[in-house]
């Protein structure tokens, strides 16, 4: 059981002398295995919320629980270790390492794990097979289409069996056909592995895949569907 609880999160940024409130008392509870979309216009606080849930940033105030463990106040090293063990990321620009092959990009996610052991070949190949790109394992990112690159990114996020995968606009750089494929794979992985997925999007088609859609505006949750 790994539920996530966001409790009264506030995030302020200082721009010159002005303090800008990016998130204003955001609270939500996410059950393990959920498939949740965070939607809203630009500047509504979607990415800031994802960054905080993903332990990349710390809130100005509030709490973030993974089950009973409150990660707010953790130092950098502890947060890094937490992300390493529990959170996978999928980026809008894929962010693959260009000099590594598909296989090695996925392997990288395991190589940075302090508990890394060398018998991971089967694990990497299994996940590549699940996202349907095992036959491309020796290709470099420049030899792949956008949709294929995002599948590599999904495999990379999932290979370490995280409790949570965060995807910031995962289909923004894809055409509608590839976007649909990527969402279907993410949904399949969510169901097969019972991994929680939280993704931000503007795209209505993408929102339709989600169990719940949380709408943000001006740093507040305005609607949950």
């Amino acid at each position: 059981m790994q539920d996530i609880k966001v409790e009264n999160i506030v995030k302020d940024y200082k721009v010159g002398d002005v303090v800008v409130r990016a998130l204003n008392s955001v609270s939500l509870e996410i059950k393990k295995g959920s498939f949740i979309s965070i939607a809203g216009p630009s500047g509504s606080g979607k990415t800031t919320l994802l960054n905080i849930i993903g332990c990349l940033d710390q809130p100005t105030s509030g709490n973030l629980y993974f089950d009973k463990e409150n990660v707010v106040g953790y130092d950098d090293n502890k947060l890094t270790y937490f992300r390493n063990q529990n959170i996978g990321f999928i980026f809008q620009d894929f962010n693959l390492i260009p000099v590594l092959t598909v296989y090695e990009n996925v392997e990288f996610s395991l190589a940075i794990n302090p508990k890394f052991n060398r018998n991971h070949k089967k694990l990497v190949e299994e996940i590549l097979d699940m996202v349907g790109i095992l036959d491309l394992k020796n290709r470099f990112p420049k030899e792949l289409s956008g949709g294929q690159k995002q599948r590599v990114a999904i495999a990379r996020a999932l290979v370490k069996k995280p409790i949570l995968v965060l995807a910031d606009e995962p289909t923004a750089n894809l055409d509608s056909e590839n976007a649909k494929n990527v969402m279907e794979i993410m949904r399949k992985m969510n169901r097969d592995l019972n991994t929680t997925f939280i993704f931000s999007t503007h795209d209505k088609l993408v929102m339709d895949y989600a169990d719940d859609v949380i709408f943000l505006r001006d740093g507040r949750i305005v609607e949950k569907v």
Partner: protein
Amino acid sequence: MVFWIKLAFKNIFRSKQRTILTLIPVIFGVMLLITMFSLLDGLNRDSINNLINFETASLKLVSKNFSLSDKKLDINEIGFIVPEEIIKFLINSDMVESFTYEIVFIGNLSDGLNKLPVLIKGIDFNSYKKTYKTFDMSFSKIENFDAGSIVVGSDILKYFEINTDSLLIIQSRTSGGTFDAFDTKLIGYVSTGNPNIDRTTVFVSIDQARNFLNVEKKVSNVSIKLKKNGSLYDFVKKFDKVLSKYPDLKLVTWEDFAFEIKAIDSAKKYSGGIIIFVILIIGGVGIANTILLSIYERFKEIGTMRAMGAPNQVILKMFVFEGALIGLIGSLFGMLLGGLISLYLYRVGLDFSGVIGDMDIGYPIKSIFRGSFNLISILQAGIFGTFIGVLASFYPARRAIRENIIRILK
């Protein structure tokens, strides 16, 4: 580990041109380091060999008035009669290969027109030949020489523009303080490569020297050659026990004579080391710059890695491996080139006779400079080059972990 080495290798060749430019000063620095130490080690080795083979043997028994600093040669001051007990000790010692007596004095050599100041050595040819290698380098082959015959260094021959069988005159002061001269016939010359022998030394028979100086049984020194496996220090210890009865005598080893060579060698190594250190610093700055540029170019990638949970040590390790790999590749090429150069220097050497001429360079070597070929030195230079790579990349690598993740992910 293999994963990170593979990744570092792939990363450094993202920009091949930049990496190659970075490698050049490292290659050059390591190559120079190896070449310089090969040359200096070779010079040191040949200098010491030249000293032992042609000037000092393993050690000398001298009068206590003999001083290395002022190098007095006056037979009245430094001459001595070798005690029978010492002769017996030397004959019976199983550590002694051979020994010989020398009478050394200064004088002028003249062909009637020109005059050259020279060092005259009165020697017992047979025992001298066993103790020194001087006559292995003689032309024509000299079997013995009698009173009235002389052998000179090759440069003296050139100076007078004469051939063997020429008649020459030796002028010097006798032990009584009067100037005298005697006629001699040149029966050969030696070309040892040791400037002190080739440029200034004239060999006469010890009997002729004694007669001329009127010193009867006195000698300037006894040169002793030890067997190859004999320890100089053990022998000196044994000899000192015998010598305790003769307070007017002392031992001077080849190491005592070589103090100037050692001082010059360490000074040259030090100054050469500074120059090469500067070159390697330039190489290090090149590596640091390459790593820093690479970090700036790969900020987003670094951000992704850190977001995925790559610990700081992993990011540091990645860039330090890249720096180390540049250092290692540069060092390997530098070791190869430096190794080939030192092999050439060891086998063939460099002929500097045209450059040096009559100059005194501080080493008892006058023409061919030979290097040494020492695999351990080559390996040490390679390790040093790699270490420069590690050191140079460490500071820029810290830049990669100091940036805010969210900022570099944008």
